[in-house]
């Protein structure tokens, strides 16, 4: 059964995918982010742009390869989100 994802949860999922999808290069490629966040390319591009504009992500270019890396602000946001997510889960709820 598909589960509705709120906007903030979707953003947090993308940030988590960037954090967890980072390879040896130190950044996450868009294909890895797409797979981990379980989001379509069109939707993901818009979200990545918005997150980069709000300084949560930085765009990294290495040769022909483009990727994304979390900034300090993005990391802090994700930490706080995960703390609140745990709190909601403790009461059997989802954010």
């Amino acid at each position, binding site marked *: *059964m*598909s*589960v*509705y994802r*709120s906007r*903030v949860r979707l953003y947090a999922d993308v940030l988590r995918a960037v954090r967890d999808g980072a390879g040896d290069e130190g950044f996450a490629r868009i294909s890895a982010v797409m797979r981990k966040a379980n989001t379509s390319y069109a939707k993901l591009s818009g979200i990545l742009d918005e997150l980069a504009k709000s300084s949560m992500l930085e765009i990294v270019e290495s040769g022909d390869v483009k990727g994304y890396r979390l900034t300090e602000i993005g990391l802090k946001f994700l930490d*706080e*989100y995960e*703390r*609140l997510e*745990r*709190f*909601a*889960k*403790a*009461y*059997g*709820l*989802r*954010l």
Partner: protein
Amino acid sequence: MLALVVLEFALTAALAALSARAALGLESRTLRLLAASFGLLALSSALKIAWLILSSEIALALSSAVMAVSFFVLAISHVYSVSPRASASYMLLLMLPTPVLAAYTLAKGVSLYLVLYAAVETTIFYTENRYRASLLTAAGLYVLFASLVLGFTSLGIADLLIVEAVQAAGYALLLASGVYSYRGAEGGG
């Protein structure tokens, strides 16, 4: 008796403060509903203190009504938070006849079914996610359910003390779950 009710108020107020802090940290309907529910629970306990100090029967009836609303908000947060599934039909339990002896009894009766619904939902959440802290919450809600059942059968002051003690234990479990998860424990397993 007063000491127990004050303890209940302290526990529910701490629960309300913790959930309000969480709700302020993130724009989330789930967290807002949770904070509203626990805030109302604290208000219900405060009204119970007023009942004991002022011997006001209205305060007692209001306390029970506010508690019923609190559990209703908690139940609603489950309906909104988790995609609708078969368990939502537990809400039909509300249609069962409740003792209509007085507003107090009616509110207690409604609370009984609502808290049971929230407890069952939380248990299902635990079985799906294996998140230990939610088991603590489910245990707290079952203890609260037990206190409400005991409330219907209590006759004397000794029984009332037991009811309040069981209720305080339920609140303590709910608070422990929140603190455990908020302090960074993963809670999985």
